[in-house]
């Protein structure tokens, strides 16, 4: 049943900080966020942490747990040995505000650069018609809960702040792809995806897909098709390589 968890939490702010050790009583079936909340309620009232739904639906409680980018609300303590120390640190790609809270404004700035949805006019009866098959493609991408773990883990920006201005990151390639594949959208965003979002900088290492808590196939279903749409295949060796590495049936063709 219950036991004392050894929890190591990064505490600090923009000017620096350190890992601090705590002992927190926990119960069967709990998740890391439960332990963090108990710590906050009983020992460290000012421990900064973001969370909302505690059910894996809002994407607020992203952190790095033993170095792995994860949602704290979906990381069960039973995944760890009871004697193991669990280390929780803020996501690394974004600047720390305080403790486990980071400044994710990068993502909101990038969101502003995506040209809006521009639909065809509705049918004469005021309704729009699309088949289930047509919408399912975009629906996969719209499962995104904006936890930004894909952004956190992306090599292009994780340790390269200088790439940030020119690179929107996997979350927004998903958005570009979603709009580009929307059956009713009229904008052509292929050039923008290349020029503004920097999709060609992605070297399809699939780290984003691995950490996605919604299991969206970011690389195979969004980034590679988008790259294909953006560039003629013979001029982008990575796309050519990708088409050799990944089986056709794992990809969405354009």
């Amino acid at each position, binding site marked *: 049943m219950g036991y004392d968890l050894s929890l190591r939490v990064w505490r600090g702010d923009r000017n620096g900080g350190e890992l601090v050790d705590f002992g927190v009583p926990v119960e069967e079936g709990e998740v890391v966020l439960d332990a963090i909340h108990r710590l906050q309620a009983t020992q460290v009232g000012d421990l900064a942490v973001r969370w909302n739904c505690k059910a*894996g639906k809002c994407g607020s409680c992203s952190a790095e747990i033993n170095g792995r980018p994860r949602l704290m609300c979906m990381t069960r303590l039973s995944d760890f040995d009871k004697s193991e120390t669990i280390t929780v640190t803020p996501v690394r790609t974004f600047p720390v505000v305080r403790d486990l809270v980071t400044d994710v404004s990068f993502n909101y700035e990038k969101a502003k650069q995506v040209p809006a949805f521009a*639909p065809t006019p509705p049918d004469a009866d005021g309704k729009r018609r699309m088949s289930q098959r047509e919408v399912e493609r975009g629906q996969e991408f719209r499962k995104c809960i904006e936890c930004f773990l894909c952004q956190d883990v992306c090599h292009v920006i994780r340790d390269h702040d200088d790439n940030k201005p020119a690179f929107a990151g996997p979350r927004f390639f998903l958005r570009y792809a979603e709009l580009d594949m929307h059956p009713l959208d009229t904008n052509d965003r292929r050039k923008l995806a290349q020029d503004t979002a920097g999709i060609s900088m992605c070297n399809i290492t699939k780290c984003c897909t691995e950490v996605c808590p919604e299991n969206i196939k970011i690389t195979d279903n969004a980034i590679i098709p988008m790259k294909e749409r953006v560039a003629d295949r013979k001029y982008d060796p990575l796309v050519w390589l990708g088409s050799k590495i990944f089986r056709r049936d794992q990809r969405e063709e354009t």
Partner: protein
Amino acid sequence: MTDASTHGHAQSSQQRFESHAYDVVVIGAGGAGLRAAIAAHDAGARTAIVCKSLLGKAHTVMAEGGIAAAMGNLYPDDSWQVHFRDTMRGGKMLNNWRMAQLHAQEAPDRVLELEGWGALFDRTGDGLISQRDFGGHRFARLAHVGDRTGLEMIRTLQQHVVALGIDVYMECTVTDIFKDGDRVSGAFGYWRESGRFLVFETPTVVLATGGIGKSYQVTSNSWEYTGDGHALAMRAGASLINMEFVQFHPTGMIWPPSVKGILVTESVRGDGGVLKNSEGRRFMFDYIPEFFKAETADTEDEADRWYDDKKSNRRPPELLPRDEVARAINSEIKAGRGSPHGGVFLDIASRRSTEFIRRRLPSMYHQFKELADVDITAEAMEIGPTCHYVMGGVEVDADTGASIVPGLYAAGEVAGGMHGSNRLGGNSLSDLLVFGRRAGLNSAYYARRLPATRRPRVAAGAVEAAADAALAPFSVEGGENPYTIQHDLQEVMQQLVGIIRKREELTESLEELKALRERARHLTVEGHRQYNPGWHLALDLSNMLLVSECIARAALTREESRGGHTRDDFPMSDDTWGGKNVVLTEADGEVTLTQQPLPVMPEELRRLFEVK
């Protein structure tokens, strides 16, 4: 709409605090807030959204089942009249009829509008927006995206807000509304990140702050649901109605303890899931109330046929309105026929194929698999009631969303009246869109009608007082831990003002709440103002305590059982009470309660209830 002369009235405060001037300030960035801001912006108002969390994280994101709208895509017989009738009956006729009418009439347009902004709803075979069955709705009526409709809605609205370039103040909490005479003149808040204060100079505020569920132990609501808008409205002089009506959603997760309260969508039942007790019996057949007998199946065969043939069969009792189902579950558990962890069973595994379940309920599958090690395609879920929604809220004008305070508007869960004593599933998302838009438009019109010379002003003294009040918890030493008070409050509300209520317990709750309020006057917070959740909670607590008192007082007053208010000592509904609202106001910290007759429904609408 304004000129530079409207800036800088709070002159001395401006030196201490950043200050922004708008025509409309919307508090809250869920469905209602975002829709209100879009409407206000489209009407030409300089508009800001202020929200406690990051954009896109508001509680709307948790809505699962769908948006109720009589589009008639699957059942051409559906119409606003049928939707209106279902809504009023679900609310046990206590709804504001005009709100229920506007809601039913306008919901289809609001859904189509979302599609025009990029939402990708599930489709019918004809390529139209698909609609699913839900409790209390006569026809399959809920536009949906699997079981993550709220996410689709909030993302669509969020992306539209971004495209329009509306100013958003994220992670910013409003603690006070300012008035100039009897009119709204501005709002005061703090940045959660830095703890710095800011002042909004605005003639209108739209409250879209959601509900109050965080005052209960077992709830589907997030930390944000502390009744901020309810409390801000009261302190600004507005009135609340229907606060005794709190919806306990029948199906929340109950095991393991850490997930207790997390929502299990009603779509499970809409898509064929049934409730069973420990004896394996579909017990809902034992709990069909007289009020719904004529439209509810009384055999399992008829109930099962209904999913495919709605014309010649009646609805399964599992799809009675939520208040009925929650009470039935409560009774089964009390009678000793509950599941091992103190709930009942919700079974879809034995009734639908694995493929169907995973396609229709992907996030439920994921949620149970990840958090409870339960495969819902292979075994039954254990569920029990969880505090989900407050029907009560700010008393508003049905057409405009205006409260009795000039310049103060409310929309969505924080507004009262629309749902009467009980809300039907699916009617919340549509409520947000219909009344969010109306409040946004009308606040913009109000601002536009104000001559520049009559713009209300923020008094410097009021700003200083608001700042002092917000900082008070830092100056107390050796006081109480806000987390402890919140914990104790949740226990009081859960135990004494829960699903089943009685006079002695409600009276006791008021004593307890008084004691808690006294303790909360001496809160101590650690650390400094930068992103300090302890401090934020200390400030939210005063809202929770005020709203909890309103719920308990109203519940004690209404001596009958109706919808989301069940009195053990008054188990029947009472026609006299059926014609009245309980209205709450506040002055100098004291809550005053009055009774007020319901608005009278016109004859042509009343006739809709005579047939059948």
